[in-house]
């Protein structure tokens, strides 16, 4: 996979619902089952993370997801293994990697990007390599055909948005709430205004995430001009509930808990082309 597939997906369909999963949460095997379930229910993209012990941009739900995946020994190579399986099963579903910088840095940029592409990644977003520090990594992505995404937030200035958008070839990942990741209820109007303002200011696809937890929010995000709505912490909470309900085993109850949470959002998304 590569950027080309992501661009194709954007041409084929205007609105995409994406599930964020930490690869290996709660186990390598169940993590694959969760991806499969998300796609069956209607996710047309996936955001995938590699477990990291110091996820300083994440709130409690995704911190715990990282810890569960680390306990399952889902290090970089194992995580790429899960990605490869998902990609083989669903070759047309773009996977966007969201990875903390030190994991990419430690592996070396060239090698990481090569391996990500081989595992089926479409794009890469490194939340803690700030734009100013990211030139080398962007160059490697570009040379090898991996899409490059950047984060922006409610306080990112219009001038800076334009600067970020100029280098982006995948999408602009807009964080809906100032703060760390975490499911939030309400806030629909504020998100709507933010998404409208940002989408109007840049000519790259806008993806919205951090905090979405309802069909209503997903609808609002699409109505305001976003192309992708990402659901993360809310699903991590559902996975946690499944894990807490009993031994993981074949993961059936984890997948059920996950599906129950995701289905209503997927239903809303289906109303959008």
């Amino acid at each position, binding site marked *: 996979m590569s950027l080309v597939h992501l661009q194709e997906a954007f041409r084929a369909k205007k609105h995409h619902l994406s599930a964020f999963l930490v690869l290996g949460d709660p186990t390598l095997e169940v993590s694959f089952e969760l991806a499969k379930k998300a796609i069956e229910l209607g996710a047309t993209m996936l955001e995938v993370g590699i477990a990291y012990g*110091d996820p300083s941009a994440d709130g409690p739900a995704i911190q715990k997801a990282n810890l569960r995946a680390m306990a399952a020994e889902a290090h970089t190579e194992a995580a790429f293994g899960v990605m490869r399986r998902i990609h083989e099963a669903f070759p047309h579903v773009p996977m966007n990697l969201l990875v903390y910088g030190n994991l990419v840095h430690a592996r070396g940029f060239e090698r990481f990007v090569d391996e990500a592409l081989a595992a089926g990644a479409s794009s890469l977003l490194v939340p*803690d390599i700030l734009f*100013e*520090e990211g030139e080398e990594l962007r160059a490697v992505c570009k040379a090898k055909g991996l899409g490059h995404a950047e*984060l922006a937030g409610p306080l990112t200035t219009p001038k800076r948005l334009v600067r970020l958008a100029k280098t982006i070839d995948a999408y602009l990942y807009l964080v809906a709430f*100032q703060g760390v990741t975490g499911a939030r209820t309400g806030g629909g109007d504020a998100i709507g205004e933010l998404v409208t303002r940002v989408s109007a200011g840049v000519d790259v696809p806008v993806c919205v995430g951090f905090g979405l937890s309802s069909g209503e929010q997903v609808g609002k995000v699409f109505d305001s001009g976003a192309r992708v709505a990402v659901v993360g912490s809310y699903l991590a909470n559902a996975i946690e509930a499944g894990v807490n309900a009993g031994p993981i085993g074949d993961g059936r109850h984890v997948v059920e808990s996950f599906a129950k949470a995701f289905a209503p959002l997927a239903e809303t998304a289906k109303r959008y082309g």
Partner: protein
Amino acid sequence: MPSKADLTPRKGAFGAYGGRYVSELLVPALDELEEARKTIVRSSSFKREFRETLREWAGRPTPLTYVANFSKLCNLQVYLKREDLLHGGAHKTNNVVGQGILAKRMGKKRIIAETGAGQHGVATAMVGARLGFETVVYMGARDVERQAPNVKRMQLCGATVVPVETGSQTLKDAINEALRDWTANLENTHYLLGTVCGPDPFPRLVRDFHRVIGKEAKQQWGDRVGGLPRAVVACVGGGSNAIGIFKAFEKDREVDLVGVEPGGHGLESGEHGATLSKGTVGLLHGARTSVMQDPFGQILEPHSVAAGLDYPGVGPEHAYLRDIGRARYEWATDDEAIEAFETLARTEGIIPAFESAHAIAYAMKAVKLGHYEPGARILINCSGRGDKDLDTYRKLYGHRIGGGVSGAKGAHA
């Protein structure tokens, strides 16, 4: 293998180290802080308030003490810069006074801080009380247990101590949590970072507030001893007390700058915090620097008997000073530090912090290692006092106090 030099930080870089490796969401806070550093910190009224507060509230200048008995043991002439006598019991106060006044002038209502041993937390709580901030201190849940007296001191000064239950529940997790809080509350909150780590501008900001240590020491040395010391020695956790005393001597090439890292149970054991001696280049807490990490880039848990040195990263400027050969980094093990702690107490009546004892331990072996000729004059930063460590000392080494046995392993061994 971690990184070829394929990543050169641009903002506030020290060669290939430093920079801003944080989320976009923190950019407004870092930009605001950098602007304040350039305007407020450089103003004469800020400088006046900083100087006066250090003098009248914190007790600067701190003395320079010649320690004759200890010198004889080391076969050196040893002078201590007495940051242990600063209000709060450690050099940390310089930085919190600076950032506290700065945060006030920036209009912030709330300050947050991380702490490991609790020294920086206590210093922040004290300055928070004096300047009227709401103060929140993040502390790993394991450290809250290990450092109970300091938790009480923070609470007494009105701070809220939040135990951090995630990850390894130690200092690095407390920093992660403080970064999260700051991201969500940057409009009314200043993150009062406790050492020369973190994203730009922190390493420069914190360093500049600690420059007073070296400035005073150099002046006192000139007045009392004359010439320059052969070496300036300081312990290195994040590196703030070391950079604070080094900076005044950096251009004097004949002066050795020696940082002493925690060797824990020995560098071969893997249980240490000698980031500059054994780490590799990585990204941690907003900076590119030398880091203790596994081959995948997962941060490793360090070990030191001195909680204030128990950190898997180090200030980026130290990594730079090491690479250009301007500073040298040695280590002292837990056992060597404890022996230095006991020896200084017994010979000079000065009980140093476990952290500072690492610098003192280096002095005890420097001549034996052939690093200095006998009688060389060296300056050691005694960064803090050891009262906070007495509980730990009693628990781990209590059998060595009093009775006949303790003397056998004493100063003259």
